[in-house]
Every structure is written in C-alpha cells, then in structure tokens.
C-alpha cells in the first residue's frame, strides 16, 4: 500500500479564550524530514499533542494514510505507528539499555518473554544505524546523547511509520547533533514520516526538506527548504518586519541604566551572556528582540541584580549601583518565576509589597494597611477578583499577569525590566500591559523590554536591539534573528 503520510486537517484547539491552534492544516509525507518551526507558545507542543493523541482538539482531525486517527487515545496512536521522541526521556534510569528497550515491547506480550529476546529487534536496528549500544549498561550512567538513541530505538522497535521529534537537539552536544541529523535522513530514506519540532533556524535549514511555520496557533507558511532562506523563516516565525513608523511622542531621554561588560552564566553553567554593554535612558523603552534562548533571561536577571556577572562589570543607574535604584521586574514566565500559585492574590502582591515601609511597623506587617494596599492595587489595575484572599490560581492568565504587573508598577520605578510580558495573553490583556509600560516610560522610567514578539517590539520600543548567542547586536532587520544558539 502506498503511504500518503500524516495529515492534520482543520485542527483547532482552544484553552478557554486562548486559541492554541487555529484551523491548522499540514501534510507530513513519507520520505521527508518535515520541520514544524515556531516560537515558544506558537502552538508546536499542542500540535504535537494532537498528532500523538495526547490532546483532544475542539475541531478537525488527524489522518494517517487517509484513515482517521482516534482522537485523544495516545495508546491507539502508538499502535497505528505514530511515535513520539520526547524532549524529556521516558527511560528508567536504574534499568539497563536492554531492559528499557524490552519495556517498550512489553504490553501484550506473555510474561515468560525474556528481556534479551524482547530487546533484540531494537539492538539490531541500532547496529543498522551504526550505533554502539551496550545492552547491559545502566541508563543512569549513559551520556544524554546515548539516552536519546535509546529513546529513538524504543520508538523504532514497534511498527513506527511516523516519528515526531520534540526539539531533539536541545540536550545534545554539536557532534551528537550531526549524528542525529544523519539518522533523521536515514529514517527519511527508509520511507518514514519524520516530523521535527524545532525553534532553531540553523537546524531546520540543515536537516529539513520541508518546513511549516506556526505563529500564534496559525500556519503562517509551508515551504520547501530550498525555496526559502533563514531570514525569510525568521520573519515568518516572529512576524513581518514592520516599516518603522512615526516614533511616539518624544520624551526627553536622560541618563539612566548603564551596564558594561556583562558576562553571565546560565543555569547549567554555560556562558549565556557574552560581554554585553547596554544603555537605557530614563524616558525611553529599549526593546531587545531575538529568538528565545539567546541569553535574554540571564541578561534581564543580571540587570535587576538577581544574577551576578562573572568578571569585571558595571551595572549602574544614574552613576550609582543599580541596587540603590527602584527596580521593577516582570519575569519571563508568570507560572514559574512570577507567581506562587499556591498562595492568595494578596500574598502574591506582597512579594514586592512586604518590603514597603509604610505597610509595617518594625518587623510586623500591619494587617489593616496590607489589606487596604492590596485592595487599592486591585482597583487601580483592574484585577478581576472577589477579594485579596482569593487564590491566585483561580484567576485567568490575564488577571494573573495583572497581579505581576501591578506589584511591579505599584510605585513609579526608576528602571523597569520586562521579559515577554504579554506571552500567552489575549489582545485585550496585551494592550493593557502595553499601556502600563508606556505609562511607566512617560513617568520617567528607563524600560528594558525583552520580547520575542516583533509586533510588540516595534510597537513599544524607542530603540531596538537584538540578542543573538549571548550578544547584543544592532537591529539589521530580519538578519538579526538568524543564527540562534547552536
């Protein structure tokens, strides 16, 4: 039977008012490495979830060789031959390679089956692919690259026809990436449907035959790799470079933030920021664009003093250490670093507020003043809650972000550092946040706005810079986006 591949037909997925996927159509053919490219939050993960039966779409369906794939039944999808290679491995660290491979084949087999015989088919595949896998080695002691091979072998040991790789290079060293690409091509030549979820342009250019670009849940473009270019892909990913329009009302720009020689380590010890110099004056918004993962978060944290710079560097505000200025911070991800989701709205406001001298007397916080202050913030910023004691987890995303924004802008800051302040918000909530940022600038704050959203970048910024591989570069249009990490 001639395989026609995997077709996603008119798939829409809504979470509340947020449209994660908006009538997405895509065809993934055998004999092709087909990349799905997009920023974080563009809908890649949701699409992958729909293809593999983990996510039930509101509309549309997925067809494999013309046959509808059962909706929301991950196990059925696996049986039909749709296999996922997750970014977070699904291996048992204490088991050996053979045991892990056998585990993937266990369901439906008799109890008497031996580990050796179960693992054999996968080990033969490994040999064909030119991989050295010691069946008796424990997964715990294996390098990440080898663990990923096991994950791929697990997928191949069934009757895999479609292989979906979720950002497989994120955990790999450069030479491991080359080998992975070799295998992707090999699988393609064997007639498999190979889907590569990615956000790094260079990798898509290197290995994909075809690319589908997602932005805000919509398919922006599908193209053969040969007919496109990195800058073309970049602008599909993040939106058209708008023609610079009239700049907003000129506010007098005075000296503000001065950061020199910042070299900042990321969480895994890698050098995430490589020698950045940045000036942000009072009364201006400096927008810093770029693809995710180029050191933006680390730089932002260094500016607000949460992360230290290695080696000699200066972070000053008006010639004094930045710690002495009033710094407001809107962190990258409200669910992870912005909110304590187990606490009340008031407690979350207190994250900054508990340091306000007027709310306490001595070491004690004065309950009456705290309540009054929380209520006033809720009113001033229009946060929709029943009261300050309501759990922050019961708020909508927009209102949650209002909690983060309101406590940052409670008093007029000298410096505002915001990282993707509108990610995941609907249009109304986005406009609201933009308005608040403009207000802060008008009142004389220096604003450093890190955003991967080009529309946002150009709508708000007085000056734009881009971050690429840990360095700040001048805005040269779409070219600035090319050459993400790795």
């Amino acid at each position, binding site marked *: 039977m001639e395989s026609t591949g995997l077709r996603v037909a008119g798939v829409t997925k809504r*979470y509340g008012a947020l449209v994660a996927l908006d009538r997405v159509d895509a065809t993934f053919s055998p004999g092709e490495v087909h990349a799905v490219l997009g920023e974080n939050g563009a809908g890649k993960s949701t699409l992958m979830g729909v293809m593999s039966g983990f996510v039930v779409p509101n509309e549309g369906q997925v067809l494999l060789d013309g046959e509808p794939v059962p909706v929301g039944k991950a196990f059925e999808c696996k049986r039909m031959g749709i296999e996922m290679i997750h970014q977070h491995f699904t291996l048992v660290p204490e088991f050996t390679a053979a045991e892990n491979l056998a585990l993937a084949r266990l369901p439906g087999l008799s109890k008497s089956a031996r580990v050796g015989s179960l693992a054999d088919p996968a080990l033969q595949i490994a040999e064909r692919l030119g991989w050295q896998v010691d069946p008796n080695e424990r997964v715990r002691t294996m390098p990440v690259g080898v663990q990923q091979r096991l994950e791929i072998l697990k997928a191949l040991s069934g009757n895999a026809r479609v292989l979906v790789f979720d950002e497989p290079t994120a955990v790999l060293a450069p030479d491991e990436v080359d080998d992975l690409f070799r295998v992707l091509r090999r699988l393609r030549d064997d007639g498999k449907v190979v889907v590569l979820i990615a956000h790094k342009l260079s990798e898509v250019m290197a290995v994909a035959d075809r690319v589908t670009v997602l932005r805000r849940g919509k398919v922006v473009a599908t193209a053969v790799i040969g007919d496109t270019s990195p800058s073309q892909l970049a602008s599909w990913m993040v939106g058209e470079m708008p023609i610079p329009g009239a700049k907003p009302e000129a506010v007098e720009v005075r000296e503000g933030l001065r950061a020199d020689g910042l070299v900042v380590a990321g969480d895994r010890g890698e050098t995430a920021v490589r020698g950045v110099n940045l000036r942000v004056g009072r009364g201006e918004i400096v927008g810093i664009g770029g693809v995710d993962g180029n050191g933006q978060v680390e730089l932002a944290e260094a500016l607000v003093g949460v992360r230290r710079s290695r080696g000699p560097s200066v972070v000053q505000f008006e010639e004094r250490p930045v710690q002495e200025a009033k710094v407001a911070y809107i962190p990258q991800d409200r669910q992870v670093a*912005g909110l*304590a989701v187990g606490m009340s709205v008031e407690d979350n406001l207190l*994250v900054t507020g508990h340091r306000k001298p007027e709310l306490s007397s001595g070491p004690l916080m004065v*309950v009456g003043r705290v309540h009054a202050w929380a209520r006033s913030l809720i009113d001033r910023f229009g946060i929709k809650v029943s009261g300050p004691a309501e759990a922050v987890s019961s708020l909508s*995303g927009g209102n949650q972000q209002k909690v983060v924004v309101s406590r940052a802008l409670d008093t007029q800051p000298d410096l505002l550092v915001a990282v993707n302040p509108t990610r995941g918000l*609907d249009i109304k909530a986005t406009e609201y946040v933009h308005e608040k940022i403009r207000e802060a600038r008008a009142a004389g704050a220096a604003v450093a706005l890190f955003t991967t959203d080009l529309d946002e970048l150009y709508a708000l910024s007085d000056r734009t810079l881009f971050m690429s591989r840990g360095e700040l570069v001048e805005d040269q249009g779409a070219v600035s986006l090319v050459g993400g990490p790795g």
Partner: protein
Amino acid sequence: MSRATRATVTVIGLVLVLVLTLLAFRLPVFDSLKLIAEGAFGDKFGLSRTAIKTTPLLLTGLGMVVAWRAGMYNIGGEGQFIVGGLSGAWLAKSLIGGPLATAGPAGQILLLVVCALGGAAWAWLAGWLFVKRGVEVVISTILLNFIALQLLSWAVNGPLQEAKRQLPLTDPLPEALMLAKFDRQMDVHSGVLLALLVAVGVYVYLFLTKGGFQLRLVGENPKVARSYHINPDRTHLRAMLISGALCGLAGGVEYVGLSGQLGSGFSQQWGFLGIPVALLGGLHPLLVVLSATYFGALFAGSENLARFTTAGTTLIYVIQAAAVLGFVGLNALADRRPAIKPEATG
C-alpha cells in the same frame, strides 16, 4: 471545599476513624469512648495528663510547621528533641553545684534556651548539608535521628551518667530548677503555657512578619523568591534553625518540666509524632494547638482505656496513622483545583 466544610469533614472523619479503630480492636465502642473521655477530661488529673502529653506534641508539631512551610521536610524532630534535652543535661551537669542551682527561674530559662540552641544546631546540620551539598533534608534528618539516639545512649552511660554510676540515667535536676507546678498532686507545669505562647508566636511570625512571609514564599515557590531578591538558601537555613529550636525546646520542656532527668528512653517518639500533629493541623500554628490537644487527649485517654481493657497505647498509633492518612486524602481531594485557565478576557 470551603474552610467550614473541610473542618466539619475533618472532625467527623476523626470520630469515625476512632470508632472504626476501636471496632477493629474488637472493643465495645461506647464504653471505650467513655473510658477515653474520662481518662482525658474526666477530672483534673485527666486534664493534667492531657496537658502533659499535649505540650511536647504541640512544640514539635510547631517545629514541623515552620520547616515544612519553607519546603524543608524535616523528619528529624526526634533527633532535635533528644539533642535539645541532652544539651540541657550537659549544662546542668557542668554547672550544678555552681551558680545554676541557686539561679531559680533564671536558671530554668537558661536551661530551656540551651535546649533550644542544641536542637537548632542539630537541625542546622541538615540545613547546611542541603544548602551546600544538596543532600535531601528527609534523608539527612532521619539519619541524624539515629545519631542522636546513639548519642543519648552513650551520654547516659558515660559522661552524663548519674554520680552513683549505677543506672543509665542522668542525675535528677534539683527542685529549684524544675518548672513551676500549679498543684503538687499533679504533673502539669508552666511549660504548658509556654507551649501555647510559642504557638501564638509562631503564628505571628509566619503570618504577620516579613521574615515569615519570605519563609512561606520560599516554601511555595523558591524561583519567585529568588527573582525578587529573597535568598532561598538563607531562608531554608533559617527555617531549619527555628524548627530545630522548637523541637529542642520541646525536649527542654519535657526535661525541665516533667522528667528532670534523661534516660535512654527520654523521648517517647514525640519528635516523630509532631509530624502527624502538624499535618492534621493543616500546617497552621493555631490549628496545630487543636490537633496536638486531640492527640494529647487520646494519649491520656487511652492510658485509662489500657487500664481497663486489653488495648495498649498501640491503639493511638493506629488511630494517628489512620487519621493522618484520611486527612492527607481529604487534602488531595480539596487540592484538585480546576486547572488554571490559560486565558480569559482580562
């Protein structure tokens, strides 16, 4: 689930657990409940017994509340309790005959302070190992419990043994150093009031001070705390110090208020029992007063029950375990919050 329904369900559940346990032990339910109630509240002696059992449970329970609220799962209350008592006994041994014996209340306070410091130091070890070396607190505190037990057994057979060197016990404290008693016929001592005061103090600290807020925030989400210049490491250490101090103080109150001397059976698992007390109290210092009283009364009452029936105090451990499991289940049910709405019009 609202707070009121939750409280109601908890109370009904506790009674139910008690009844079911009695049934499982094949005891006549009504008569047994009566014996328990009489033993715990029947007369002033019963009340005294209840208060005496409640006090160490309350203090260790409060210790657990502080640590767990900060995300430090201190299982080492037992060790901190023992080291607390040991520290006091060491002070007594080295200073008795000297200035301490005549110091009166000042001597009592000094003893209690040293006990609290001893417990804090023991807990600090686990905190330090976590912050500097990433050793899980659950593991290190459990192991430190064993070390504390051995330390106790060594001390009462060695350096801290009574002057006559016959029994594995320390010398008893002179009467002047023991906490004041309200009634010569009963054991109940002023440490009971101290424990209640400490409960209020812990409440004030956790919910009304900046330091307490930071501690709770670190326990809820250390990443948020870090983003806003609150050092999670320092906060974790602080929580362990306070927690250990409270458990050490529990040991001190037991020593200076009740036993007056240490033997190898000094702690009757008070440090471990503090965990179910804290959990049942919802990690809230004032509710922990209630849960400690509940278990304290059970202890006092089941001693009475044991006098008239075949049931031993094992019964309480069964009831404790069943109550905590039930309570944890209830919490899990209540915590099935609706998934966070990704977006709605703001």
